């Protein structure tokens, strides 16, 4: 799958309180989360983002809370993918669980600037900066996480697994 979009740049240690403050997390309407995304850095962020845009950040993106509204808020703004040097571990899990693709890349954040148009190949991890005419290689998404993305997140993946188990069980019953 190839994504193409304009880049929004962020620095080190973008935390979940900045991505979405907890006071907006009480409800479960995901559209509301998007309106407050990155409020601590730029309250207008959600208005500026166009569908398909891509966040490129530095290290430890998503540190802090385990709140799942964080990756959901980013997704709701229309952001299609986040690239960072490293991600905080709970955010990493949550992003795949809610279907927001993320890629770890050591050098791309040094060169890609805000406003650049980039292309991301989620299967291979290749990132192409169309403005610079230069490619970067992100760590490929581990096969297990790719399976999650293909199934549409963790719960859909589980549902599929449960259905399979159910089918096998009923086959056994009918077979003997």
């Amino acid at each position: 799958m190839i994504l193409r979009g304009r880049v929004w740049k962020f620095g080190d240690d973008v935390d979940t309180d900045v991505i979405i403050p907890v006071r907006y997390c009480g409800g479960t309407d995901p559209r509301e989360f998007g309106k407050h995304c990155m409020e601590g850095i730029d309250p207008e962020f959600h208005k500026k983002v166009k569908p398909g845009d891509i966040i490129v950040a530095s290290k430890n993106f998503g540190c802090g809370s385990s709140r799942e509204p964080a990756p959901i808020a980013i997704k709701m703004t229309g952001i299609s993918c986040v690239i960072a040097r490293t991600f905080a571990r709970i955010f990493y899990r949550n992003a795949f669980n809610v279907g927001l693709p993320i890629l770890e890349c050591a050098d791309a954040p040094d060169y890609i600037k805000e406003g650049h148009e980039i292309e991301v190949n989620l299967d291979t991890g290749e990132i192409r900066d169309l403005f610079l005419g230069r490619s970067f290689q992100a760590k490929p998404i581990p096969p297990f996480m790719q399976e999650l993305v293909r199934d549409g997140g963790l719960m859909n993946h589980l549902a599929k697994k449960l259905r399979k188990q159910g089918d096998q069980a009923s086959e056994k019953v009918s077979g003997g």
Partner: protein
Amino acid sequence: MGMTITEKILASHSGMERVSPGDLINAKIDIAMGHDLSTPEAIDTFERMGIDQVFDREKIVLVPDHFTPSKDIKSAESCKRMREFAKRHRITHYYEVGEMGIAHALLPEKGIVLPGDVVVGGDSHTCTYGALGAFATGVGSSDLAAAILTGELWFKVPESMKFVYHGKLQKWVDGKDLILYTIGDIGVDGALYRAMEFTGEVIERLPMSGRLTMANMAIEAGAKNGIFQPDEVTEAYLRGRAVRPYRRFESDTDALYAEVREYDVSQIEPQVAFPHLPSNTKPISQVENISIDQAVIGSCTNGRIEDLRVAAQVLRENKVAPYVRLIIIPATQEVYRQAMQEGLFEIFLDAKAVISTPTCGPCVGGHMGVLAKGERAISTTNRNFVGRMGHPESEVYLSNPAVAAASAVKGRIAGPEEVARS
């Protein structure tokens, strides 16, 4: 090659002889915890899938602790959904307002989380339970839903990082200062994806309250979990509390560590973490004149009885400075009762502090002490990110309870030596 305590616990829960860092495993869950912010989202997930079942009603713990007693209609609705879910599935460990506490203080206190357990919680500070020698880690709502439904979750076995503390602690220095100092040393991603294993003679002497504080903040260094070897201190703490048998694991002497860090604690002073990262630490002696509007003593990090005793020691015969608010929040009903029986409330009230019912409240900018634009607080909580306690232009400084209490008296960040009368 030996294994670390973290690796042994994960191996034992995934039916493996041994596991190594990087292995993807499916582990059985002993306890899955959710609170009033994470559980309703997990329930939503169930509803979307048309599922309404739990893997084991004894192994799920639901605690409304963040915005409770409900602060507004939205939080009341969230609590109601969680309460109805608990009722419908006859969840054994559901703690209503009146018997609840901040989950990470309540679960150890009730003996629900035990050595050798694998615990997941819909809260990043779930790593607190590592103090008891459990593998405990925070997850989001989808993972929480999966754990509640299946009793299993996938993990990547983390590398372990060993921290060794030598020497003798100075007066007024406790677990909070050790962990702040450590995070100041390695940074907020210094233990990213890793297990932090706390060891050394200082740790052996550290009471359970200090261990809980340290494990609690492992996440602030990016760690997957923080962990302590169970020992006599652990056994003494669990006596009369443990609700079921448990198994003690220890790291092998030839276990492999990604990194080992050693500290001489004799030189460590009380620490203050400046805005806006827990790693921006300074020793109290290097903190210049920083006025404060509010002090908060409480939270899953520092709301236990030991923390309140220290605060009382500093506040005795002192008064909170004019125009400053001191908010004290016992972490559980039991801590509340104990503090009252020990006469600590008299000292707090005389000092003009307010005492709140247990809640996470101000730590997350939820309620019970939200900051206005430009305001500054010192707090015994665990995070000082932009906007954490309220307005994006407010500031939070992190410290131990003694420093927070002394600062409330002085109206500026101050060490306990400046005000304590005993």
